[in-house]
C-alpha cells in the first residue's frame, strides 16, 4: 500500500513552490508599478531589467497561481486521507489548518478570476491591480500560515514558530470566534459588501484615473 503522506508531501511542495513563485512575481509587479509612478523610466539598466522581469511576471503569476491552487486542493484531498474528517472535526489545530487553507484557496481564486477576466489589462487598470495585489497577498499570507500549521501537525519544527510566539498565537487552540461576534461580523460584512458592490462604479472613479498605472 502506498503511503498517502508521500502524495501529501508532493502536493504540499507543488503548491508551496508555485504560490511562492507567484508571490515573488506579484512583488516584482508592485515594485515596477510604483517605480513607474514615482521615477518613470529613470534607473538605467536596473529599470530596464525590472521592466523585463515585470513583463515576464505577468504570465508567470497566472500560471503559478493556477498550479498553486490546484496543489492546494490536491493537498486538501490527500490530507483528508491522513486525518479522517471525524478526527479533524475534534481537533482544533486540524480545523484551524483546514480553515486557513480554504481562505488561501479563496483569495488566490479571486486573483486568478480577476486575471482571467481582464488578462494583461488586470495589471494595467489600477482598480484591478489593487484587487490582484490584495487578494494575492492575502492568499499568500494564508498559504504560509497553513504551511506552518501543517508542519506543526506533522511534528516538525515550523520556521514561523518565533513569530507565533511573539504574537502569542497558540496553533493548538481553536481559532473559532464566539457566536455573538460571528453574528455581528456576518451582518457587518454583508452590509459593507453590498454597499461596496453597489457603489463600485463610483468608487472606481475615486480610486483611479484613466491613466495606465504601468506602461
Amino acid at each position, binding site marked *: 500500500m502506498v503511503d498517502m503522506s508521500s502524495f501529501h508531501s508532493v502536493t504540499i*511542495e507543488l503548491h508551496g*513552490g508555485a504560490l*511562492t*513563485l507567484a508571490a*515573488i512575481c506579484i512583488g516584482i509587479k508592485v515594485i515596477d508599478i510604483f517605480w513607474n509612478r514615482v521615477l518613470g523610466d529613470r534607473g538605467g539598466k536596473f529599470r530596464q531589467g525590472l521592466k523585463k*522581469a515585470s513583463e*515576464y511576471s505577468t504570465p508567470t503569476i497566472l500560471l503559478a497561481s493556477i498550479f498553486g491552487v490546484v496543489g492546494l486542493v490536491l493537498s486538501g484531498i490527500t490530507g483528508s486521507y491522513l486525518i479522517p474528517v471525524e478526527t479533524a*472535526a*475534534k*481537533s*482544533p489545530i486540524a*480545523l484551524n489548518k483546514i*480553515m486557513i487553507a*480554504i*481562505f488561501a484557496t*479563496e*483569495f488566490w*481564486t*479571486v486573483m486568478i*478570476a*480577476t486575471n482571467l*477576466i*481582464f488578462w494583461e*489589462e*488586470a495589471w494595467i*487598470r*489600477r*482598480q*484591478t491591480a*489593487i*484587487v490582484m495585489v*490584495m*487578494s494575492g497577498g492575502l492568499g499568500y499570507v494564508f498559504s504560509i500560515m497553513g504551511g506552518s500549521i501543517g508542519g506543526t501537525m506533522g*511534528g*516538525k519544527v515550523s*520556521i514561523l514558530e518565533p513569530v507565533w510566539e511573539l504574537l502569542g498565537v497558540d496553533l493548538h*487552540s*481553536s481559532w*473559532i*470566534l*464566539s*457566536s455573538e461576534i*460571528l453574528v455581528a*461580523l*456576518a451582518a457587518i*460584512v*454583508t452590509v*459593507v*459588501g*453590498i454597499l*461596496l*458592490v453597489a457603489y*463600485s*462604479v463610483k*468608487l*472606481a*472613479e475615486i*480610486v*483611479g484615473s*484613466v491613466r495606465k498605472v504601468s506602461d
Partner: protein
Amino acid sequence: MNREIKHYGLVVALLLVCLGLLTTSLEAYSGGWQDGDTDYNCGTSCHQGGLNQGAGTIDVVLDTPSVLSGQTLTITVNVTETQLGTDRLVGVFLLSSKTGSGDHPSSQGWTITQDPNGGTVNYVEKESPGSGETVSFKWTLKAPLAWGDYELFVRVHHGSLAKNPLWEDHSGSISVEVTPLPAGTPEIDHQAVSLGYIGENTPIEAYVVNATRVVLNWRVAGEIQYNSSEMTNTTEVSDGGWKFEGEIPAQSSIAQVEYFIVAYHELNGDPIQADTSVYTISIEPKPEVPNTTAWTIQIIIVSEIALFILIAGVRMGKARGKKEDEQNG
C-alpha cells in the same frame, strides 16, 4: 526570436535557481523526527532523530528476567547525558537485534503494549532534562507465544545540526527467558489505557481465560499503596474467556495513575494467579470540542468577503475600461 528564447531561458533558469534555494531546508523527517515504529537504520541514516550531541550512559532494568509466554514484562531504560545539543531531545530505540533493519521487537513475536509516551511504538523521543540528568523510558511488552531465550537491545540516537549523528550508543543485549504457560494459569489479554480525563472515571477492560476472579489495582504515581477493586465479567467470549470491566475513579487534577490487573484461579485446590505489568495513565484536562457550526459560519463570512472583493473589483475594472473606451472615442 532566438534572442527572445534566450531571454526566456535565462529567466526560467533564474527562477529554478530561486526555487532550488527555497527548497534547501527540505529534509526527510518521517520516522526519525517523532515517535514511530522504526528500524534503527531508517531512523538514523536518511532521517533525523533527536538533536543532541555528546556522550552518555544507558542503564536498562527489566522487571523480571523471565516471563510466561503471552504475558507482559516492563523494560525501563535510563539515559544520562553529559552534553546537550540544540533541540534537547533524546531518541531511544527498543530493538530485537543490532542488524539495523528488520529489528523491530515484533519481528521476534514481541508486542509493545505501552511505550514511554503512551503509544505502542519502538522509537520514542523525550525532552532531555539537562546535562548529567537522567531521563527514563518505560516500555511494556507482551511476550512471544513461542518460549525460549530472547534478546532485546536499546540504542540511543543523538544527531547534530550537521545531520551527522555524533553519538549513537547501544546497550548490551538484554536476555529474557520466555517460559511456557503452566496448564490452568489465567491468561490476560489487555489493551493498555494511556490517557484519561480529569473528572471522569477511566474504564479498563481485559479479556481473561481461566479466571475465577479478576482484580484491578491502581494508585496515583508516588503513592505507596495500591487501591483494589474487583472487575466484573460482563460478556462471555470465545475459548471460555470472559470480558472483565472495571474503572479507575475520577481524578480532580492532572496526574499519572499506575495500574495492573491480577487474575486468580484455583487448580486442584491450589491458588494460582497471573498479572499484567504496571501501566501508566496520564490524566489530562478534557480537550475542548470545537464548535464546527461556528467554524463553518466563519469560513462563509471570509468567503463572502472574497466574493465581494471579486465582484467589486470586476465592476470597477469594467467601469474604468468603458470610460476609457468612451474617451478614446
